[in-house]
């Protein structure tokens, strides 16, 4: 006997959220793998008594500034979600715009630090990992800013409301993951060195 259950609606409300959840998990595993390699190679190198980063090469200031900026952007992202939930479009514009600007600020600070830091990428294993992890995070932030720009345009067009908030919720999930990844960068690379 053939089952004749009804066909699902064309687009379930949480489809984008579920897809973003899988994509964000993949991004977290990408960084998880890199952090694991970083910690394991660092532990091995230090156990042999070799140098990891040269003394004074990694400054806490740019890392700390970026961490503060990212943390602030998590708050503004939550503000955007809250505003959309309350159909408060003016605050939603403002929150998305500020979050995007904070993202651009992180990119700016990181690029400046890359130009300023005196460690070439082929200096040692630590340098390669430093540039790969922070560079990959830079790309993640860039994608987030692009997404926020798209979101802003949609919100300006009135397409995101309390009833249709999946894009905002998904963008927020992705952005929180971006902030979470940076907190590990700050902890393992800038503080732990």
């Amino acid at each position, binding site marked *: *006997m*053939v*089952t*004749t*259950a*009804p*066909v*699902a*609606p*064309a687009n*379930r409300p*949480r*489809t984008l*959220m*579920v*897809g973003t959840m*899988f*994509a964000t*998990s*993949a*991004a977290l*595993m*990408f*960084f*998880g*793998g*890199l952090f*694991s*390699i970083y910690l*394991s*190679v660092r*532990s*091995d190198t230090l156990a042999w008594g070799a140098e990891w980063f040269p003394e004074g090469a990694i400054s806490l200031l740019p890392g700390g500034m970026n961490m503060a900026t990212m943390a602030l952007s998590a708050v503004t992202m939550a503000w955007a979600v809250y505003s959309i939930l309350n159909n408060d479009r003016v605050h939603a514009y403002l929150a998305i715009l500020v979050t995007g600007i904070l993202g651009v600020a992180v990119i700016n600070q990181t690029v400046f630090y890359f130009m300023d830091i005196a460690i070439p*990428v*082929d*200096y*040692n*294993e630590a*340098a*390669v*990992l430093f*540039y*790969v992890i922070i*560079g*990959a995070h830079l790309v993640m932030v860039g994608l987030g800013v692009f997404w926020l720009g798209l979101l802003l345009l949609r919100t300006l067009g009135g397409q995101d409301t309390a009833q249709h908030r999946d894009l905002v919720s998904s963008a927020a999930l992705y952005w929180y993951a971006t902030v979470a990844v940076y907190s590990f960068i700050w902890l393992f690379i800038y503080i732990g060195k």
Partner: protein
Amino acid sequence: MSENTTVIERAVTTTDPALLSRYWIGAAGLGLFLSIGVGFLAALERLDLSTASIFDGADVIFQLWSAHRVGLVLLAVLPLILGLATAVVPRQVGASSLAFPRMAAAGFWVWLFGAAITVTGFAVDGGVGAPGATSQTQAVAITLVGIMMVLLGIGATTICVLTTVVAGRSSGMSLGDVPAFSWSMLVAGTMWMLTLPVLMGNLLLVYVDLRGRSAVRFGAEEAIWEQLSWAFTNPQVYLWALPLLGIVADIIPVSVKAKLNTNRMFGAICLLGFVGFGAYAQTYFDLGTPVRQEAFSVAAAFVAVLAMLMALGALAGSLRNGAKETDASSATPLVLAMLSLLLLLVGTVVGALNAVESLDLAGTSAIGAQMIFTLAAMLVGMVAGLSWWGDLVAGRATPQRPLLITGLLLTLGLGLVGVADLINGFNGLNDFTGAVLSEAGNSGSAVDTLNLIVVIGLGMALVGALNGMISGCQHLRSSEPAVANPWGGTTLEWSDNEGSA
């Protein structure tokens, strides 16, 4: 779409899951043929271990050997699975279409270009490094970019399939009601999404270290394969074969008209998925004891055998209860499903043997034997799946005989390779034999004979892959209409099969 669009425009811009499924399967068929072909060439060199008699030294042989493994997984097995899943999963769960159809289409094209770049990279003396580090660095970098694109494409399509199962299910269908193949795709896809990004991270690290300067460590050519090999060996290789359990769990109960113990089967799929997580088994994590000799790794190898026995127990119940009701028309998928299960069981047993330190099989050809048994299981399972769901995929009646021949040739050919490599492993033959006698581990007459069997086996598999491609083309050109429900299936994919050509 406008009626003025050309055939090429329509082909390139399509988001139709049935058509994308055919693209995946067609391209993967070519990938399979190429992968087995390069494996055959590498095996030819093994016939005479005393010297590099055919190719120019160990580095070229290594490139062929590694291309065989990378190709089998990333250019053949995974795309074949995704091809079948793209067509079958939305129908099984009652979704109107695949979730994010544009992303699914983009995933295929990114994979295809990535695959082309990967093949080009291997062809121009690149690949994933070489023991003598004499390959072209630029070509190695190109290969790495190609593999990263392949992973991106696979990842994007996997997300579409997963989202379809989770968020696109028919209303009233809980996750426990999802048919076995969709369930296996949910578990396998989730595990792929947790491990493929780690491989991507490895590749990026290698690429950045390799590109444009002398490598510090990660991009050193002689070390690249060592770092990436976890994705092509035990236990990760089980994740590539996991959907096989879903395929056979859909085929066998319907063929014998008996119920399946779904709880036990779904449990077995989850267990094998859990122990198949292999991202931890990297050489970077070897601090003191190699990670493959750690207790968890050894225990996981044995739990994989238990998971297989659990799955076999669930299926044996169906076979016992319904053997008398077996319909002869479903002989092809049924036989191939049973053969694929047998291959996977052997694969898990060989994996467990490899984990026993006292057998001293680490680094021997028994490692390759386990990979071959497991991937062969998935390939034969895929042929069974195409025989079962071929009407849905192609929208035309599926000729069973060519698929049976393809499946039998793959089983026999790759089975011979696996058995010969396993015995050679016990003889001490190295997994990569190189071109120098002293590096082969063992070059006795018994090994030479078994190496000949490997060549014969790969030759048979090559003929099987070619037969599959030819019969696939003939199938698509056939005008015989699809049968609405050829097997009397009760899952949703059979409820509206009007032929999707």
